[in-house]
């Protein structure tokens, strides 16, 4: 079977899980596409997963109430072994890429990390992935009785519901004790469209000026366009915006239909997180800013002058 470990947030199945189902089907490898849901009170997530998967395994227990790399890895590896999975697909989120290598070690499996395409290749899998801060696209292959893959968010189409929902089964797991205790949590959820799921993203960089200007320029423009709000590393480091909005090497990787960068210079680390967007739009007062080199559309001008005009012009 092909085992997918579900990603979800706030009791809702994440789009990345639907994308992993597509990735699984694209391999053309045999056996049911199986989604494993780990957590507590996840019946709703499991039902959503059943709409797209051949079968759903549900591990609903207090021990899984919060994500932990070791617990998640142990759970995925155990189910992969018991179900004789030949392919294990994990989300390419920060957490997914944190526990997937552990699953690979536990299963003595090769690991294809953060792939943007996936296909069956003889006894194995072939995939593409980005390297060199997403400037190079590499083709990789692995063979073996079981292969672990993490799928880059936004790289595969979301699977559509099947005619018949998959069966759901409860599973029991033997889980290790977590050795990391979480003593504090600072959840920084953006109140808007999740970045990974947004069709349009409006991102502010240092050129926006200050935290207040995000409320004056970035947010109203995003609201007019029904867009998610992003931020650069510099802006997050300055404390203007939450980390959840950070796009780039150390933040999220996004590829929306339109990425609108306001006062963003376009450092390589930032480009690696958004350079694959369908359309890139830049507003910057520095005509030499690297962001213009990758922009489809742009205005050379001060954010303080251009964005209020854009907010006005984008009203319907």
């Amino acid at each position, binding site marked *: 079977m092909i085992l997918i470990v579900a990603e979800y947030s706030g009791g809702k199945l994440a789009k990345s899980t639907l994308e992993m189902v597509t990735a699984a089907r694209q391999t053309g490898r045999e056996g049911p596409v199986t989604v494993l849901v780990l957590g507590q009170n996840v019946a709703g997530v499991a039902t959503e997963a059943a709409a797209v998967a051949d079968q759903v395994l549900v591990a609903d227990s207090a021990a899984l109430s919060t994500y932990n790399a070791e617990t998640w890895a142990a759970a995925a590896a155990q189910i992969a072994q018991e179900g004789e999975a030949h392919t294990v697909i994990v989300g390419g989120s920060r957490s997914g890429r944190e526990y997937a290598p552990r699953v690979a070690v536990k299963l003595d499996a090769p*690991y294809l990390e953060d792939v943007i395409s996936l296909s069956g290749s003889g006894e194995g899998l072939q995939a593409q992935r980005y390297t060199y801060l997403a400037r190079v*696209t590499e083709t990789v292959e692995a063979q073996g009785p079981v292969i672990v893959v993490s799928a880059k968010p936004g790289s595969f189409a979301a699977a559509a519901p099947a005619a018949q929902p998959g069966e759901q089964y409860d599973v029991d797991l033997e889980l290790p004790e977590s050795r990391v205790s979480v003593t*504090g949590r600072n959840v*920084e959820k953006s109140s808007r469209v999740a970045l990974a799921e947004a069709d349009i993203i409006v991102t502010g960089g240092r050129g926006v000026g200050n935290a207040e200007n995000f409320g004056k320029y970035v947010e109203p423009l995003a609201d007019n366009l029904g867009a998610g709000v992003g931020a650069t590393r510099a802006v997050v480091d300055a404390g203007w915006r939450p980390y959840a909005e950070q796009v780039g090497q150390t933040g999220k990787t996004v590829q929306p239909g339109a990425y609108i960068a306001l006062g963003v210079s376009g450092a390589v680390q930032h480009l690696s997180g958004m350079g694959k967007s369908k359309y890139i739009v830049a507003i910057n007062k520095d005509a030499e800013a690297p962001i213009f080199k990758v922009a489809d559309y742009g205005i*050379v001008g001060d954010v303080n002058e251009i964005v209020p005009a854009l907010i006005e*012009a984008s009203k319907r």
Partner: protein
Amino acid sequence: MKILTLIRQVPDAEARVRLSGNAVDLDGTTVVMDGMDEYGVEEALRLRESGAGVEEIVALAIGPKRNEDALRTALAMGADRAVHVETDERLDAVSLSQVVAQLAQTEQTDLILVGGQEADWDSQALGAATAERLGWPQLTWTNELKLDGDKLTGRHDVDEGNESFEASLPAVVTTQQGLNEPRYPTLPNIMKAKKKELRKDDLATYGAQSRVKFVGAEIQTRARLNKIIDGKDPQAAAAQLIDLLRNEAKVIK
């Protein structure tokens, strides 16, 4: 308490990447210590300076000859000695973790520091895979770290926001920007570093082989329209841009 800090020599982020055949050609490219690893070296030094009972800091690199420079930099920053497993063979991170785990055991390491993501392979897997092989916990994307006895506390980034944590050594910690501000090696320390031990190991003795085959590489540049409007008249420029997005790109309604 011994710290192993993993480093790599990679192209500078601003350097132009070139292909030769089906692989990236670094000939003539400016290479530097991977920035994310540099935070690890710095953090090891800071933990020692904080009085955390750090007896030794060993810098480890696995890879081609160019990594010697990164190791010399780490020694000049203040690491005590270096180990270089020299190879031109490219190993995937999970296979590479076999080497790191073996060295951590022979070096009796208590704490491994490694960058959160590699600037060349864009991989985040080495720290986690090493932790799994050693049976250790891991803390990834750390931006604050304290050590008291064998108790680690700190803060790290997670999917949505950040978490404060507590864990006990031994452990693997991955590092990133924001954790600290790496020091520049001073000239006297650069001179001193030349006398520090830099041991060369043979990859063959570790029995690690890549489980991933690297078939090819290409640079896919997306042709961009580059329609840049002069913003001297903000209203006109904004109206023109919105019109392009609506009617040409058709990305907004």
